[in-house]
């Protein structure tokens, strides 16, 4: 038996991941040992401190460019930028999760095991403090995402995919109101997520088969091996391309690209709104981070042969998202379809195989994350006695009832619509430009046309809020607590600043846009 060699591990570079996972474990202990009345504050504090510490480590180690842990993890420019983005957005999401003044007891159910709609359930709906398990679940998910964007082999990638997905399935089921809808969403997400994971795993197996077919080389699924195999392969490429397709399907599912988007509207609608915001922002960052790394590092040698196929999917995604957004009547579903369309725009950036494309895509991810979290933050505030009022007809005349929040929401919708001087315009510009340079004009044309279509549902909401009389059914906006306010301010400011002076962040993404191999 050969001697087992321990790989060298660069703990400092991995510190953000370790901090988040450590905080998650601590969070479990807090659940066990801290008195119930203190738990919420302690858990929220712990999670936020952990995120801040992790962000600090990302900033301190922003110069590291290493592959560590036996080739399983790569800490390079894109990793660090995306980790930082996930962490900042997650901090905003945590603020929304921690909000307890908008709704008594918070957005989460106290005891998830109580049968929905039963008398006990109605009692617990009346302001019993929500489950504090959501914090460790959130921190686990964040930790998983941090690994996901750093994963440098397909198995690590798969495991981290599960690490961040499983807590998300649970989080989706924990809404305080409309529990059946929430549980249904979680069930759907779980089943389909497991299904998509199977595709991914099968893809990994095929890729392994491909690498093992090359004589004189070790088989493996780390990106260095895959890359080398792709580069010189003389063996059958059927396995390679079938494997790539299956991997892409698994990742595109998480990214909510058509035709793998079907779960998105139901899950976004059913999940507790802070969790929806978290998924729309952070899951998107993680999924696209992984896609970028797979395409740019592992399969770069396949010379982007698959660009037309993914391009078709991108156009389909934009089209489905934009056109179906037009007929939506629920604000959360509307935002879900908008998120699908945005996945299409992001794919355009992914398909520009250049430093600028990479940089633009990362910029887009950050900018979109801020806006979408702010949008869902407003959704949590528009409510009546039965919880959030998400049907669009209920938003009619909101501008007269609560001009301030209607104005904020209008601004965010304008950003989604890509109106200049918001981050929506600059980020679209940042992905469409490189795509043109890469001769993908058809993608850009599709992007411009669908974003024109997409502007219509957004503007419809704007008109509804401002230009209709408030009816009996128009809810008022709850005055947000400090936590939601903070999240809102961050989101709106980022949307504005990235729209007017995007330069510094673009410089940052450009500086970070290089993978280590």
């Amino acid at each position, binding site marked *: 038996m050969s001697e087992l060699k321990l790989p060298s591990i660069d703990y400092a570079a991995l510190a953000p991941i370790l901090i988040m996972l450590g905080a998650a474990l601590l969070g479990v202990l807090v659940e066990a040992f801290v008195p119930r009345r203190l738990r919420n504050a302690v858990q929220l504090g712990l999670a936020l401190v952990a995120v801040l510490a992790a962000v600090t480590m990302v900033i301190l180690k922003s110069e590291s460019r290493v592959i560590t842990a036996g080739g399983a993890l790569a800490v390079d420019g894109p990793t660090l930028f995306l980790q930082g983005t996930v962490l900042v957005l997650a901090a905003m999401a945590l603020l929304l999760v921690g909000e307890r003044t908008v709704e008594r007891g918070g957005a989460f159910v106290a005891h998830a095991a109580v049968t929905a709609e039963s008398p006990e359930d109605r009692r617990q709906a009346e302001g019993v403090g929500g489950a504090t398990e959501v914090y460790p679940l959130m921190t686990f998910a964040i930790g998983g995402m941090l690994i996901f964007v750093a994963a440098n082999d397909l198995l690590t990638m798969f495991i981290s995919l599960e690490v961040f997905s499983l807590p998300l399935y649970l989080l989706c089921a924990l809404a305080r109101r409309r529990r059946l809808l929430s549980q249904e969403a979680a069930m759907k997400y779980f089943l389909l997520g497991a*299904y998509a994971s199977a595709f991914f795993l099968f893809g990994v197996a095929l890729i392994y088969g491909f690498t093992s077919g090359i004589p004189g080389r070790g088989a493996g699924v780390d990106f260095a091996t895959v890359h080398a195999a792709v580069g010189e392969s003389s063996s059958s490429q059927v396995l390679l391309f079938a494997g790539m397709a299956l991997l892409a399907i698994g990742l595109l599912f998480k990214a909510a690209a058509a035709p793998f988007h079907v779960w998105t509207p139901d899950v976004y609608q059913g999940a507790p709104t802070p969790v929806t915001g978290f998924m729309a922002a952070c899951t998107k960052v993680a999924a696209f981070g992984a896609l970028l790394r797979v395409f740019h590092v592992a399969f770069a040698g396949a010379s982007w042969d698959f660009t037309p196929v993914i391009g078709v999917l991108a156009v389909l995604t934009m089209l489905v998202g934009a056109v179906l957004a037009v*007929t939506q009547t629920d604000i959360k579903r509307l935002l879900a379809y908008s998120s699908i369309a945005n996945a299409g725009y992001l794919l355009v950036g992914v398909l520009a195989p250049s430093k*600028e494309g990479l940089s633009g895509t990362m910029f887009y991810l950050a900018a979109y994350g801020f806006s979408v979290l702010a949008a869902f933050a407003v959704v949590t505030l528009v409510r009546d006695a039965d919880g959030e009022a998400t049907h669009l007809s209920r938003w009619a005349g909101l501008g007269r009832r609560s001009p301030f929040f209607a104005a904020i929401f209008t601004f965010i919708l304008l950003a989604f619509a890509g109106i*200049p001087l918001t981050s929506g315009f600059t980020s679209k510009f940042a992905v469409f430009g490189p795509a043109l340079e890469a001769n993908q004009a058809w993608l850009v044309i599709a992007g411009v046309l669908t974003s024109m279509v997409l502007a219509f549902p957004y503007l419809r909401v704007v008109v509804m809020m401002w230009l*209709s*009389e408030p009816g009996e059914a128009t809810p008022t906006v709850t005055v947000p607590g400090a936590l939601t306010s903070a999240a809102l301010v961050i989101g709106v400011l980022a949307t504005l600043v990235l729209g007017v002076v995007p330069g510094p962040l673009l410089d940052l993404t450009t500086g970070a846009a290089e993978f280590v191999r």
Partner: protein
Amino acid sequence: MEQTVEFATADGLLGSVWLLVAIPLVSAAVLLLLGKRADRWGHWLGVAAIGAAFVLGLTYFFQLRGLENKQVQTSLWQFITVGDLKVDFGLLFDPLAAVFVLLITGVGFLIHLYAVEYMAHDEGRRRFFGYFNLFVAAMLLLVLGNNYVMLYFGWEGVGLASYLLISFWYGRPSAATAGKKAFLMNRVGDAGLAIGIFVLFAQLGTTQYDEVFNGVGSMTSTTVLVLGLLLLLGAAGKSGQFPLQAWLPDAMEGPTPVSALIHAATMVTAGVYLIARSNPIFSANETLQLVVVSVGALTLLLGCIIGAAKDDIKRVLAWSTVSQIGYMFLGVGLGGGAYALAIIHLLAHGFFKANMFLGAGSVMHGMKDQVDIRRFGGLSKYMKITWLTFMMGWLAIIGIPPLSGYFSKEPIIASAFEREGWTAWLFGGAALLGAGLTAFYMTRLFVLTFHGPKRWTEDIEHPHESPKLMTIPLILLAAGSVVAGGLMTLNDGVVSWLTPVLGEEAGGEAHGVLSHTVITILSILITVLGAGLAWFLFRTGTATEPQPAGVVVTAARRNLYTDAFNEAVFEKPGIFLTRALVFLDNRGVDGLVNGLAAAVGGGSGRLRRLQTGFVRSYATSILTGALLVVAAFLAVQAGWLA
């Protein structure tokens, strides 16, 4: 194109040209954010902001006159850097921008002043002025940007503000529908402009005006054609030109000052600005110029014919705007010296059309918001100032010398006749015919409103003249309608002022198919003929109810069936696509599989079982997608796609 375009750096006073955009913008922000607290003084802040911008614009104008190189630009900050593309947040102040700034702030100021009184009884007056200032800021950004991306910023901004202002009276369903229509048709145009900008970027790697214009020569003529057509699509959308003209008349649902400022004097001329600004691109391709000229000629006739059949005072004026902008497109399409003529007509039109719109508002103010000209008549005795000022606008638009329309329109007709061969007869003839038709429908409007017997509704006893705050702007604009054309063409003033931007007139006297004198006589003759005919027909008023009409009039009343065209071309496919996608998303894949299963299994029990779970159908659609993706990847691998 041989000479290179070179912009100097703005320094000294001109370095602060950004203030022009900033002042109305800040004022808009204050008005919209302060809410009810600003209700008492908000409208005066709005007026003051535009007044200040006008004074500032004048200062810059005189500053520019003293400069050697009359094109100065300033970069405020670097906006976007993506790869090789650098977009500055930069402004360009040159003769073309300067005249637009003066038009926007000058006419804008008068209209703001008028609106203080016009909107006095509207509870949303402060909000209205907020949007109004926002519009002016966006419009100024549009004409002041030094690259196409800045232009696009302003372009979107004015679209948004106009959308808000059209729908301002949200209580009226027609207003909301009109807002929607304006928005949709503008999006079609905006998409053209956006793609055009991306084409520029792809071909030249820049969107700065100077670099683009110097690089036109390096593009193939097909590229220039495509680029120009895309820009033209954008211009047609904003300026209400064929085939995107339908939104403009509907936009009249908004308050009258909005119609005057946005849908007559400024925003709708943005298309003309775009083409004039891009003159090196348009001059580089003759087919492109021919398309622009055709669009202009077609639209100018379309507008006249439909305008002659309408009974709503604002809609007649709106179709007349469509038609007059057709003249401007004709001008910019003709190229060479006609660019400047189009700009002169644009400026003159800004005065007399704003004048007539505000006059119409004044009539409506006195007639309890009646807009039907069949229910007016004899108002000249009751509203003396409105009558006289409107008369100046009327005489100006139909081109009676020496009012301004004569000096601005007649040269365009003359240059249309200077084209070569049969196209001279075609386009010159269209322009000449348009002049006659314009005289006809404008005279009809004027006579039916102010002369002839009273045909008022019963609830009106004694219409009153509007208050001073409304009549003073009318008088000033009327003065502009009388003298502006003459002043601008005196010693070729504006033409030589615009030379640095639009180039020299192609040397010497051009020889048209008809001599200049003949054209002048012809156009005055046909104008008098049209006006005389209308006066004769309508001097005794008209029936107050719709009359049965022949084919031509019916067609004209129905906007020459252009709405039906739009519905078939834009609306139907959109609706179909949406329905198809909704169907596919919800039921399609399910139905497909169910159908298969039923066919295979033949049992209805299985069919029912298959329909119960949505997750299953989602999974099926994922599986279908997955199969297709894998198949496609393998096809790529086998070399079938690539």
